[in-house]
């Protein structure tokens, strides 16, 4: 099938060199960052976190608790950076907005029948509107993976474009759910479609499917962002999400971003981690760096 949209042929996205990608990652993971650079990286990673709760069992109180955690990461250690955003379901956006008022921390909301994305466009738009109207500065949408696998790339494109329009001034993150795409080639193609359709960020996963974010798949997406930037001059952000729970891995992601896209992407405007337990691990590492003493989870608030 050869679908063409606005002069862009989605089926002709570049093929990905899997061996090359894995080799590149192997070299990244063999390195380690020490001392001042490590400290800087840890603080930077903390500042890039979208603190997330997306459970069926979420309640207003749970969201309030998470917002409180976002604002008071570890008060006994002063001058910590804050996280970038709190990410919740649309019906909790109002609660989160109230809790985070004046804190400078954004509210992100998943929308579009998260996590499966199986619903009509009407419902998805409504879902998005609810979140935007409640004040969400960022919308995390999922693409229709079924349609994507069927080769109906126009459908996927149109849907993203429609949601982007509904977002207004809120920034749109497009979740590809790479764990369901299967191959790097498909990840690359989905990335291209999302960016062409107006995504402000592309994001790996919902966190509900395993594998979630991995370094290789992130590299494929970063390369897509780089090519898109060279082609159009438009900067697109990246958000790996799910399964990033320790500092070492977070630092490896930062290395990957720095060496693929450069330092312009090393701010929370263009790079985010979707995570919940990563924050505490970063805090523990920061304090370990500072005091030389290995830390215990017992002394850090859960959320």
């Amino acid at each position: 099938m050869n679908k063409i949209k606005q002069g862009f042929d989605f089926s002709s996205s570049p093929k990905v060199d899997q061996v090359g990608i894995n080799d590149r990652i192997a070299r990244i993971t063999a390195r380690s960052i020490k001392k001042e650079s490590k400290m800087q990286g840890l603080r930077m990673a903390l500042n890039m976190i979208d603190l997330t709760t997306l459970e069926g069992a979420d309640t207003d109180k749970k969201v309030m608790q998470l917002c409180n955690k976002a604002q008071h990461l570890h008060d006994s250690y002063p001058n910590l950076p804050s996280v970038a955003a709190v990410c919740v379901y649309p019906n909790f956006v109002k609660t989160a907005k109230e809790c985070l008022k004046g804190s400078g921390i954004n509210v992100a909301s998943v929308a579009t029948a998260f996590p499966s994305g199986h619903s009509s466009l009407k419902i998805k738009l409504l879902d998005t509107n609810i979140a935007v109207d409640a004040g969400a500065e960022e919308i995390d949408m999922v693409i229709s993976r079924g349609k994507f696998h069927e080769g109906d790339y126009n459908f996927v494109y149109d849907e993203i474009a429609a949601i982007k329009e509904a977002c207004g001034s809120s920034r749109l993150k497009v979740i590809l759910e790479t764990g369901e795409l299967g191959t790097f080639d498909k990840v690359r193609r989905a990335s291209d479609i999302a960016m062409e359709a107006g995504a402000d960020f592309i994001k790996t996963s919902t966190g509900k499917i395993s594998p979630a974010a991995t370094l290789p798949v992130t590299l494929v997406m970063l390369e897509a962002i780089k090519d898109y930037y060279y082609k159009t001059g438009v900067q697109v952000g990246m958000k790996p999400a799910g399964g990033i729970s320790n500092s070492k891995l977070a630092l490896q992601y930062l290395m990957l971003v720095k060496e693929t896209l450069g330092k312009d992407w090393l701010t929370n405007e263009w790079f985010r981690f979707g995570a919940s337990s990563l924050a505490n691990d970063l805090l523990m590492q920061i304090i370990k760096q500072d005091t030389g003493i290995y830390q215990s989870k017992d002394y850090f608030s859960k959320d």
Partner: protein
Amino acid sequence: MSRLEILKTYKIYIGGKFPRTESGRFYTPKNGDKALGNICLSSRKDFRNAVVAARSAFGKWSGATAYNRSQVLYRIAEMLEGRRAQFVEEIILQGSKKAEAEKEVNTSIDRIIYYAGWCDKYSQIFSAVNPVATSHFNFTAPEPTGVVSVFAPEENSLIGLVSSVMPIIASGNTCVVLACENMPLCAVTFAEVLNSSDVPGGVINLLTGKRSELLEHMASHMDVNAFLYTGTDKKEMEAIQKLGVANLKRIQLKDFSKIYSSEHETPYYIEDFLEMKTTWHPIEKIGATGSGY
């Protein structure tokens, strides 16, 4: 033609696996001129990884039934019995006479069985029902302390290790042990025994290396709840006590020099790493017809 001797590399034991030290370093302890083996010189990162393994093993091990823990300890003794020849040989290699070596292995096996027997009995000894003046059923029961750092005795290899570790794990604690620096062969072989018995990975983690290098981290780590020091070095003892203050570690300083003495077979060694929990349970009435329970 003389052949080139192959010196065994003894690896460390973390989370049920036998990795080499992440530092890649090793040392070669000697008995006279005879090299004993290539031994991992563990780094603080190996210790850090071992604590993570010990912490994640704690829930399941402390939650196992006392009867089950007893069986597992007994199984260690059985497996040790099956490999006694190797242990005797290694103890001789480290400088002991044959008779001494046999005595050390025999006593070690007996001591494991001794503590296996205590697993489902210490709690009856150390718990209590307490008389109180209100209408409460008030009782105290022991719980394991958590993750324990251990300096195994320097004077001997197997018996010291067994005598220090068995009472700790009998109650459901998990531990990270630094083996004897100059005679570490049996410790690593003992880890092979643990691995082939039913002890879950992470319950006992064995490192080899230098006390001077690891003391600071083993005593200060915030996720370690207790420390067993076996020895008599005043400076080391003082350092451990100071470093352990930050998270109020339960620190036990023990002299293990008379290792064959029966003083090392006692349920109080189990009690050293127990926390007592007292529960106030409301009851309906205490009256003429007797108590509500």
